[in-house]
């Protein structure tokens, strides 16, 4: 067999900067961890991580309006990719700020200093003094961000899989690093890892079948093969279904949602914020690209199933959230319901569906980061007070924190003048124009159901009597304050003046491949 001649793929490194800058920041972070003295290590890590994310955001801004299909069509840096990468960078900045807060009120941060010490004990203080602090959180987050940046830009199933693993592996680890309630955290990490590995296997199996069908792994090539319809359809639909299982698992759509409440509850709260926002953006970015580019011509075949999944996701998320007594679990189910709403944008399969979904992802992500940020402030002596009953009367004792949380809850419920409303409106109107009116009706009804449990928390905070031994609301450090302030600002501004960003999202479509 004569070896084929090798031609080096041309790679537009400039267009890949939103991916390469966080990757570089992650590697610099590992070096900082290895060589920086322990006194400045934490601060240096925060600076490197924030600089990497800010650099990626700037790169997205510079590249805006361009589209490059590069690395032998494996990567497509186009409008939607850049919009979602910019969103991930912003969400990453907010999450890193939440992680970075180690001010005295925050009880020394949310992460383990050394795996074998009890939180708050003399042992732990000694181990921190001796400089054995763990700052791997930041490089791990940056590696995860690298994968997330690559995920919505992948124009090729193999690269999509690589990006999926790059973003997942650090997250599995990060879930298990909570300083308090460590068993819960480690259980979350193991569950996430096992189920994530299963989902990856599904994805790979689907990839193999689709390669068998189309003879190529590029999304455009699969589209061409599917439209020509000259091959064996069984492979196509089996592959499509298995691929969808892998991706729907990552975004937490029912019936692949069972890991979300446990993992979101067990993970350290700043990491939960990161997972609930940035991972979801990346996952939906990939789902949108796969379904719009590869399977857009097969809408008639997969839409009925997708309808079922969307309806189930919305209903499961909204109904189970009502029965939760833990605030983190409640927000986890709320994120499942939101995944259902965004699925409407995918099913719409038109330009406004794409831009509406992207806008929704931004508004939802920012609000979620803020809500989990507030959660880190309300504390009992043994950690965060996440049980709902502990929040009774919080509004009387700390009106500002309770008010901010109420704003986030209203935004998640989709009340007008918050970003949640404009996002829902964009996706639902796209759904109607895409012929999914019954789905939108289900969406509106479940939104109303969801509003019930959001408002219930607000009522509990403001109209119930404060507890005698209620939780302490700590004064946040500058980092947490700025993360929450960013979230509040974006939530309000996008509720009142959504038009500039909506225009940006509208101009970002369509996908290039």
């Amino acid at each position, binding site marked *: 067999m004569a*070896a084929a*001649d*090798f031609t*080096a*793929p041309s790679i537009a490194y400039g267009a890949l900067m939103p991916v390469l800058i966080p990757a570089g920041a992650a*590697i610099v972070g*590992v*070096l900082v*961890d*290895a*060589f920086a003295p322990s006194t400045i290590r934490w601060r240096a890590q925060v600076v490197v991580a924030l600089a990497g994310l800010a650099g990626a955001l700037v790169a997205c801004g510079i590249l805006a309006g361009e589209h490059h299909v590069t690395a032998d069509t494996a990567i497509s840096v186009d409008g939607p990719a850049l919009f979602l990468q910019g969103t991930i960078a912003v969400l990453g900045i907010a999450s890193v700020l939440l992680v970075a807060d180690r001010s005295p009120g925050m009880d020394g941060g949310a992460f383990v200093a050394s795996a074998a010490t009890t939180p708050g004990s003399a042992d732990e203080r000694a181990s921190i003094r001796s400089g054995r602090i763990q700052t791997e959180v930041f490089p791990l987050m940056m590696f995860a961000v690298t994968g997330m940046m690559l995920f919505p830009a992948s124009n090729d199933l193999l690269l999509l899989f690589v990006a999926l693993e790059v973003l997942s592996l650090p997250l599995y680890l990060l879930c298990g690093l909570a300083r308090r309630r460590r068993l819960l955290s480690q259980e979350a990490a193991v569950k996430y890892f096992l189920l994530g590995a299963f989902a990856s296997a599904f994805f790979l199996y689907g990839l193999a079948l689709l390669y068998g069908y189309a003879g190529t792994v590029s999304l455009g090539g699969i589209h061409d093969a599917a439209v020509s319809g000259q091959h064996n359809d069984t492979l196509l639909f089996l592959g499509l279904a298995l691929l969808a299982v892998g991706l729907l698992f990552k975004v937490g759509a029912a019936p692949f949602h069972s890991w979300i409440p446990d993992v979101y509850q067990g993970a350290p709260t700043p990491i939960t914020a990161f997972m609930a926002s940035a991972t979801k953006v990346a996952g939906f970015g990939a789902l949108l690209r796969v379904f719009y580019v590869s399977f857009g011509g097969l809408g008639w075949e997969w839409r009925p199933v997708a309808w079922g999944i969307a309806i189930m996701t919305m209903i499961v998320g909204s109904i189970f959230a009502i029965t939760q007594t833990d605030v983190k679990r409640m927000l986890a189910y709320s994120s499942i319901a939101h995944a259902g709403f965004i699925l409407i944008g995918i099913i719409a399969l038109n330009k406004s569906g794409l831009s509406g979904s992207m806008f929704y992802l931004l508004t939802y992500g920012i609000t979620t980061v803020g809500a989990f940020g507030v959660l880190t402030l309300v504390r009992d002596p043994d950690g965060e007070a996440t049980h709902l009953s502990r929040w009774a009367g919080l509004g009387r004792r700390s009106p500002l924190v309770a008010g901010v949380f109420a704003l986030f809850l209203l935004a998640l419920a989709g009340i007008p003048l918050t970003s949640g409303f404009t996002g829902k409106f964009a996706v639902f109107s796209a759904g109607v124009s895409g012929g999914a009116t019954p789905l939108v009706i289900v969406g509106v009804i479940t939104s109303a159901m969801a509003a019930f449990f959001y408002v219930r928390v607000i009522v509990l905070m403001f109209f119930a009597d404060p507890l005698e031994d209620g939780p302490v609301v700590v004064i946040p450090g500058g980092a947490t304050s700025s993360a929450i302030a960013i979230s509040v600002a974006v939530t309000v501004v996008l509720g009142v003046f959504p038009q500039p960003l909506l225009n940006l999202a509208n101009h970002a479509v369509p996908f290039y491949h």
Partner: protein
Amino acid sequence: MIPILILSIFSGGFAIFSIVAGSLSGPKRFNRAKLESYECGIEPAPQAFRGHRLPVKYYLTAMLFIVFDIEIVFLYPWAVAFNKLGMFGLVEMILFIATVFVVYAYVWRRGGLEWD
């Protein structure tokens, strides 16, 4: 075909020769350590079952081994196809090795290479 055939005859012959020669010429003094697994002097205990714990050090060593093993797995085909891959392959491989080297530096500085 012919060179591969000759090579496999030589390598197979060498393997058989080594085993036979070793068993004929080596001294045979049996003791307890010879009957243990691995025959290396380190007792394969404590076991993970019967309530004992496995030393976590082995896990670290195994993981480090995998990192460098994978590096070699990628280096080998690259070295074979070096002439065809040219400058592009060289630059990519240098980037890859540099990244693995960063990990090596991290492991070394954080005490991953110390046994005790």
